[in-house]
């Protein structure tokens, strides 16, 4: 199958999947009564709920329509504007809301994913090398790394996050939750000298030439990034280790050694061949990452798309939920597509 045909086929499937997914999400509106959904728009601090006519409000917001009518409304609006519908909770288009909440999440992923993947490959390689050198006996460093990965793999992310939060924030006061401290917030929003470039505090601080804001942003980043890294690291370490060990017993390694190559060169050859299996687990990694973002942002009060997803579910905001699912799904499908294509380059035996 040619590359173009492969991409076309996947895209058609993706559109179908998105259609079914969003329809399914709108189908779940039938499980709620219209007044129940209308009640989510009322804040008890401003109006007393008894004075609001919920039935009327539900009718006004078109919540009493059958689910397919609501779905078609959403679909029409998102096709016309390309913005995945309108959310009443935020008084704005869904894509704009998501776009606004994207930079914090990008900031988290930008720091944690490279650490997890590169560090995981390094650790896994090291562990495999130690295990391979001492056949028949358990190696101490290898055992420590394996015990560490097994342990962190078994700990739920929210537990790791809360634990690090209570040790390093509540007891030691080294790091802090949320994105920035209150001083920095005052400076950014009220000093008038702050320019937004990317929405990422670390990068914007450097571009503005404010080193202290950069340091403050880093101080707030450490805990969530560490937690998110721990959610991905074990998978990378264990897959690297096992595939490296499998590759070590191949004849070409013996040949390489017989030729008198240095150990570093042998390892680089082995690692290149083991790399395919790391691509294989990329979809698991991505799923871990998406779940991790939701949990980490919730634990550390980090206002990204992960906490937006939790809010959307709590508020029964169906346009927002559908839009978020579309975005999550697109990220997942496109990454898998890229990985599948990358696979054929890394391992030419594989056909699309």
């Amino acid at each position, binding site marked *: 199958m040619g590359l173009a045909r492969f991409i076309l086929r996947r895209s058609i499937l993706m559109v179908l999947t998105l259609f079914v997914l969003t329809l399914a999400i709108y189908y779940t509106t039938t499980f709620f009564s219209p007044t129940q959904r209308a009640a989510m728009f009322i804040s008890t601090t401003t109006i007393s709920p008894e004075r609001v006519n919920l039935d009327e409000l539900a009718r006004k917001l078109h919540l009493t329509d059958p689910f397919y009518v609501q779905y078609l409304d959403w679909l029409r609006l998102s096709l016309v504007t390309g913005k995945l519908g309108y959310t009443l909770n935020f008084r704005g288009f869904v894509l704009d809301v998501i776009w606004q909440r994207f930079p914090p999440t990008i900031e988290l992923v930008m720091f944690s994913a490279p650490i997890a993947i590169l560090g995981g490959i390094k650790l896994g390689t090291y562990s495999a090398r130690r295990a391979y050198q001492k056949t028949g006996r358990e190696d101490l460093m290898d055992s420590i790394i394996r015990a560490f990965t097994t342990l962190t793999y078994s700990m739920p992310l929210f*537990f790791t996050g809360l634990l690090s939060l209570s*040790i390093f924030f509540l007891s030691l006061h080294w790091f802090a939750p949320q994105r920035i401290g209150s001083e920095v917030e005052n400076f950014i929003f009220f000093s008038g000298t702050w320019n937004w470039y990317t929405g990422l505090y670390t990068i914007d601080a450097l571009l503005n030439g404010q080193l202290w804001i950069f340091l403050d942003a880093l101080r707030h980043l450490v805990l969530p990034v560490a937690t998110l890294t721990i959610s991905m690291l074990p998978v990378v370490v264990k897959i690297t280790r096992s595939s490296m060990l499998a590759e070590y017993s191949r004849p070409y390694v013996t040949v390489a050694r017989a030729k008198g190559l240095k150990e570093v060169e042998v390892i680089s050859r082995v690692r290149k061949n083991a790399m395919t299996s790391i691509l294989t687990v990329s979809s698991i990694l991505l799923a871990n990452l*998406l779940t991790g973002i*939701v949990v980490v942002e919730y634990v550390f009060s980090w206002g990204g798309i992960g906490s937006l997803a939790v809010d959307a*579910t709590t508020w029964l905001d169906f346009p927002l939920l559908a839009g978020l699912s579309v975005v999550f799904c697109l990220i997942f499908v496109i990454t898998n597509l890229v990985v599948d294509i990358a696979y054929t380059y890394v391992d030419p035996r594989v056909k699309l």
Partner: protein
Amino acid sequence: MARLRLLYRMLRASPLLLTGTIIVSSFAAIALLAPVLAPPTSSDPYLCPYEGPPTTGPIFYHPPPTLPSSEHPFGTLLGYDLYYGCIWGVRIAFYVSILATVLSLAVGLCIGSVAGYLEGIVDEVLMRFTDAFFALPGILFVLLIVTALPLRLELNLGLFNLTLAMSSLDRIILGLAIVGWPQYARVIRGEIKKVKQQDFVEAAKAVGCSRLRTLTKHILPNSINPVLSLMFLNMGGVLIAASTISFLGFGPGEGYAEWGSIIAGARSWLIFMPETSQFVWLFLMPGVFLSAFVLGWSLLGDALMYVIDPAYGRRLNVWG
């Protein structure tokens, strides 16, 4: 018998597998002995004993959490005894992890085996369907299912109405099953495609077995092992997913003997009273129970994988 001997040899050889077996069996013992270890005080044994001001009256406040004492070995949270919650939480953990994996296994088995056996257009349609489910944003979809499913689900089946009463745990289980089945479907389909090429399947057809009989009596028993291995490996991960959902606030709620909800309660206390750093205790014990449970299953899962299907185990085992 040979497999039992293999299991014994492996337990002797690997301390990790031995640890896993010990952890899971001690959790099973705690689950069985729960009424002895922590005698229930109310009619619902999964509700922790409440010790605080009366819950009636115009306004009531939960009492502040307390640190471990002789009366409450793990302390109390919102007036609920944490020791009791941890002990009875073991039962919930077994209930959730086993039921959710078995449900998703059942669905995956049906769809995957039909797709693998029939091939052609049926296979294509079913597998694209599976792919669509595989691409779902897992946690978001489970959250939605958990909020969307009503407490009483009334199904109109034409002749009679079926009414299902569901607790929030049941809804979490159902959500996890809906999201979790595609991986089983994929594995079983691949295995069936391999097995059906073999001679004994041709023989069964030649003798005159019906298609259903060939599938259930001849093909499935010979291709189910990898799926079972996968099931045991997933046991812990499913519990992590379930407790994450209830940690995010979609679970049974406060006072309920479920580790995720207990930790969620402790979190809200920590967040709103930041000066109470000594109350790490509140979520430490439930978290340790939860992690140990998952750790036990993932260690044991490796062992069982080898015992059930040595060849597949060697292929799939990533711990080396």
